């Protein structure tokens, strides 16, 4: 392991690796990534694998739209050994009340301004798109045909391989224990395998980002929250789009290999580092799916698991440098949609660290929480 680096990135998920790759591509020499377990072992490898652009805030729309451009070209851009399994058959978002439909129409206007090709659909049109959908209580919906899926494991591998080719040192099973400071500035990272001197540290630790914040004395406005998922046996493809609803609280997609992935967010879930799956989830998930997508009742559940969302008060990420601790950068608080906006996050954070102009107009700093004028992202499961 290097004893000195231009930047140390804490977290070997898709965010940390995308940042490492983009920094190296822009010419930074000594970049070290620290990962406590194996790459993608945290939220990235546990996520629902969906990529959507249908968001309810400007920032999320921008990040998602541009990230989709990169996913579409990722195999070439990163010269992947294994295809990232991009599938673009859309996201069908369902509304279950007129009030929800009103919110959707506002979101559509916003999305149109950001060049996202989403549109409103009637319940009947929704059923044309997903014929096995039970539209009994559906008030309407929106559909974006270019939304879809990518394989998180293989996206991680793609960024890992590309970063390594550019000379990035990636240390798995290596834990950051402390960050040292002198006169308010960062001087290095203490790991369980030795010390790395550096004046730039990136917090990309996902669900554990608040612990990394504590190392430099920051109380970050993020909290970890368990979210659960299950996967079924594989079957012939019969559902193109991701079916999703915020009020009915579900997302369910057939992955290119054939299995269905599905989950929902438990509104009573407390903030914690708990990553264990629960029987309650399995039961509730089965009921929801069987009612909304009846033929899926015939599918056997193969596995269930849980991972941590890293939630901010406005459900939008924090992508910024600390004003209190110069040299401490954060790409955290993705609130359940970090995977799908990782490609742009990697670029923007690299630009920020190198002092370049940002290629996308974003304002995702920490000060917004102090001012209190938050624009709340309404579209999170």
């Amino acid at each position, binding site marked *: 392991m290097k004893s000195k680096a231009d930047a140390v990135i804490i977290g070997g998920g898709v965010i940390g690796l995308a940042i490492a790759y983009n920094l190296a591509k822009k010419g930074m020499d000594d970049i070290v990534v620290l990962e406590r377990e*194996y790459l993608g072992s945290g939220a990235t490898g546990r996520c629902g694998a969906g990529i959507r652009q249908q968001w309810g805030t400007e920032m999320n729309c921008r990040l998602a739209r541009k990230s989709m451009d990169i996913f579409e070209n990722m195999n070439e851009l990163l010269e992947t050994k294994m295809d990232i399994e991009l599938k673009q058959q859309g996201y069908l978002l369902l509304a279950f009340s007129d009030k929800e439909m009103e919110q959707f129409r506002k979101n559509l206007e916003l999305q149109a301004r950001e060049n996202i090709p989403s549109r409103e659909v009637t319940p009947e049109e929704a059923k044309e798109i997903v014929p096995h959908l039970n539209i009994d209580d559906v008030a309407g919906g929106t559909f974006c045909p270019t939304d879809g899926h990518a394989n998180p494991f293989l996206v991680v591998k793609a960024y890992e391989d590309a970063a390594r080719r550019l000379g990035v040192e990636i240390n798995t099973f290596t834990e950051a224990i402390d960050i040292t400071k002198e006169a308010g500035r960062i001087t290095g990272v203490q790991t369980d395998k030795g010390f790395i001197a550096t004046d730039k540290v990136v917090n990309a630790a996902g669900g554990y980002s608040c612990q990394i914040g504590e190392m430099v004395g920051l109380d970050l406005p993020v909290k970890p929250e368990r979210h659960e998922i299950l996967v079924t046996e594989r079957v012939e493809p019969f559902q193109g789009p991701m079916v999703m609803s915020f009020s009915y609280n579900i997302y369910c997609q057939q992955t290119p290999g054939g299995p269905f992935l599905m989950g929902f967010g438990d509104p009573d879930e407390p903030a914690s580092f708990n990553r264990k799956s629960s029987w309650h989830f399995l039961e509730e998930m089965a009921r929801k799916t069987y009612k909304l997508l009846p033929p899926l009742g015939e599918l056997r559940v*193969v596995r269930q*698991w849980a991972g941590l969302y890293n939630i901010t008060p406005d459900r939008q990420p924090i992508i910024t440098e600390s004003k209190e601790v110069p040299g401490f950068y954060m790409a955290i608080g993705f609130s359940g949609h970090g995977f799908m906006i990782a490609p742009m996050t990697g670029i923007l954070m690299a630009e920020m660290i190198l002092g370049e102009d940002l290629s996308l107009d974003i304002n995702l700093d920490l000060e917004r929480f102090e001012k209190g004028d938050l624009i709340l992202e309404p579209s999170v499961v």
Partner: protein
Amino acid sequence: MDENNIIICRCEDLSLAELRDVIEDGYETIDEIKRVIRLGMGPCRGGTCLQLIDRVLAEYQGTGRDAIQQPTNRPPVEGMKLKEIAGGLDEI
């Protein structure tokens, strides 16, 4: 025998040659290998392959099989249909 013809994971149709390829790529744990080539992620839930991969990894690493870290054992123990878990629509 040609290692391309020795099937390690029947659900995902993976051969011993494919397993050796990822080990030679530098992956050292079952958890990593699972995620890269889907070994053990099919409907049998790793019933056969997880025993075989132990041995291959132990050989590479010059350790005993006991030294190989096991992946998380995730529920359910056996595949169950969603509608059986849902227990009928009455309660919904």
